């Protein structure tokens, strides 16, 4: 994970921003500077049937700063969800994304809110990336009405229509044809937007992936299939489940790109490249080489099929937040103290959101029957005890 600075960045060091009285250190680059900064990705891209994008990524100080803050928020949110689950405030299934934040953040940096994203059940952080609030996340996880889906969806069903986030799906692989449909609608309406369909290395062996890929390639749909390869399909390592674990190549006639998913700048570059490609040439597969620190879900300790050394090794060497922290420090965009302050602020924001969500009420029993159908049908529906609960669907 070598950090290399390109010579052009040194001229940025000649920019001296006025110092604010509160800051006691002399900063080379201000953290809200939008002057272009070019940083190389940690690893080269590996491509299949296409030309790989360059390793030099255009970014800026403010963007890097926002990366840090957003990833720290996501990390803190997932850790907090872990504690809430253990405190039995979150029930059922809870799939945590910590370790994979770079994929969500890097993707958002490369696209607009008009582009669509659809993913599987590991969706808390993508929801945040698409503009969801911490209150909506914790509200939904705890089943309250302030949740994103009014408490009726749960951990696996986060959606945000206004920013084109289409969920949040529990059945492995079922979101892939849906993503194909989103891309179809984009092509149908002639919008210049793309759809990012996320799936995991476990779902990469689903038939419906290849069916959807065939259709997307056949009709040149602007679909980008992103395999978030965290190397384990719940408890099964990728080499035990896939004959060919080079997921970026499995599209065969569809070009692919393998990306270091722990490097937010690499993810940003790859997604930017993918969007341009998809609008011109049809589908593309991106394989994000990433890692999850938690187990598959809160019911899975995550240590029976991999060693603790492996987990801590990845955390030390490839952690996405640490990488950005080092970048910020090396380019003198922020000081250690400032970054720690951010983390403290993030912690506070998360705690506040949790406290607020805890005060939020559970849905009213009448909510059981709302949103089953769009318009009123006047149909009688029953609760568990048919004599006790009979409702006319609103």
């Amino acid at each position: 994970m070598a950090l290399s600075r390109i010579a052009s960045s040194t001229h940025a060091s000649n920019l001296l921003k006025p110092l604010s009285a509160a800051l006691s250190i002399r900063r080379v680059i201000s953290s809200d500077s939008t002057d272009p900064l070019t940083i190389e990705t940690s690893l080269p891209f590996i491509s299949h049937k296409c030309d790989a994008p360059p390793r030099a990524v255009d970014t800026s100080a403010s963007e890097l700063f926002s990366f840090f803050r957003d990833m720290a928020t996501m990390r803190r949110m997932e850790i907090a969800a872990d504690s809430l689950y253990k405190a039995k405030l979150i029930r059922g299934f809870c799939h945590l994304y910590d370790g994979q934040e770079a994929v969500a953040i890097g993707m958002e940096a490369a696209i607009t809110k008009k582009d669509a994203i659809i993913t599987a059940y590991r969706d808390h952080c993508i929801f945040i990336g698409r503009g969801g609030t911490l209150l909506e996340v914790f509200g939904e996880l705890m089943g309250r009405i302030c949740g994103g889906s009014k408490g009726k969806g749960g951990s696996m069903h986060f959606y945000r229509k206004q920013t084109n986030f289409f969920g949040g799906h529990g059945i492995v692989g079922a979101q892939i044809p849906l993503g194909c449909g989103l891309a179809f609608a984009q092509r149908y309406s002639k919008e210049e937007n793309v759809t990012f369909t996320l799936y995991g290395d476990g779902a990469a062996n689903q038939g419906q992936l290849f069916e959807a890929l065939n259709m997307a390639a056949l009709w040149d749909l602007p679909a980008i299939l992103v395999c978030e390869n965290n190397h384990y399909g719940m408890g099964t390592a990728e080499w035990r489940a896939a004959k060919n674990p080079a997921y970026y190549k499995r599209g065969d006639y569809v070009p692919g790109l393998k990306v270091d998913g722990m490097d937010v700048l690499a993810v940003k570059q790859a997604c930017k490249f993918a969007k341009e490609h998809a609008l011109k040439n049809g589908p593309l597969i991106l394989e994000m080489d990433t890692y999850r620190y938690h187990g598959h879900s809160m019911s899975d300790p995550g240590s029976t099929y991999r060693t603790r050394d492996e987990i801590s090794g990845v955390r030390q060497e490839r952690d996405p937040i640490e990488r950005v922290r080092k970048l910020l420090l090396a380019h003198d965009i922020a000081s250690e103290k400032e970054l720690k302050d951010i983390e403290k602020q993030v912690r506070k924001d998360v705690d506040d959101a949790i406290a607020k969500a805890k005060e939020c009420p559970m849905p009213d029993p009448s909510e059981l029957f709302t949103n089953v159908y769009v318009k009123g049908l006047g149909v009688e529906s029953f609760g568990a005890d048919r004599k006790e609960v009979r409702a006319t669907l609103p």
Partner: protein
Amino acid sequence: MATLFQGLPSSTAFSSSNKFNHAPAPTSFSERKSSIVTVRSDARWSPVLNSATHKPQRLITNAVATKADSSLASTSSKPGHELLLFEALREGLEEEMERDPCVCVMGEDVGHYGGSYKVTKGLATKFGDLRVLDTPIAENSFTGMGIGAAMTGLRPIIEGMNMGFLLLAFNQISNNCGMLHYTSGGQFKIPVVIRGPGGVGRQLGAEHSQRLESYFQSIPGIQMVACSTPYNAKGLMKAAIRSENPVILFEHVLLYNLKDRIPDEEYVLSLEEAEMVRPGEHVTILTYSRMRYHVMQAAKTLVNKGYDPEVIDIRSLKPFDLHTIGKSVKKTHRVLIVEECMRTGGIGASLTAAITENFNDDLDAPIVCLSSQDVPTPYAGTLEEWTVVQPAQIVTAVEQLCQ
């Protein structure tokens, strides 16, 4: 697979909710059926005046129309136009596609081929390949694709070449189509129409003779309707397309070539209403799709025997039109359900439960439900006939019920 069912089933008599009409022959006939007309498979008409020589299988019954229009004028002055059921479906589809550019069709062989039952014939030339999309044979994925497109606001009509093939798409229909409106807290609507032919055909074999309404009926969030005449086929198709909810429209393989006259003006039927086919006093017979015609054939025999059955085509399989059904039960106090689903877990089973729960006090006798046998549909013609409810069985059941 393109099995175009050409001939009308020999044991099926049919009627329509409109006054029955003939195309070329300008014969008028009374409601007392003094002449019997034979309908040939190519829709030629040949009046057979001597009733003694006709074969029982070619009976055409004349249902009492519920529509006010029951004049006996000759064909040429009749309002409306005549067409076959699949053409009525196509007309409804075409009108809706013209009206709303978001409406599109996707399915196997719907485009260039024109649809295996010709429902989408000519539409691809008119609307283009993207709006009438020929998909590869991947039911799960193209159904999912249609649902994903619907989440953004398109209104796709997903055709299963045979309803049985949609079993492969069950996950998408149940989990995504039915549930997304609920699990997203009302954010996404899924205004899809999933349609296709199902039911027992003419020796099509077990896998191609399935009745999926029994499997889909539990899925929360969807509506199911079954069409049975050209008139309600067009009306239900239009209503289903305009509905914001996902609707599954069940057509029947053997009913595509039914001919009838439908109005020229635009009309949309209600998805949740049942159709009164023949008002009566003695017994309520609830049926849908192809069994409607077996019931009407049995009704003719019953009328001759002095019974007065009330026949209701329930049309809406989910939710049931308990209003119309309830009114009828309160009048006749006896219910016979005739369906093509299998006995176990079929629409009839649910309907029996619903009527018992709601109208138990109005029933003078237990509900009788005639369904198909709980067997895979055999290939042999005679066996296949025994699988499905036949008019003679309906007559016997009514006689027993009315004792």
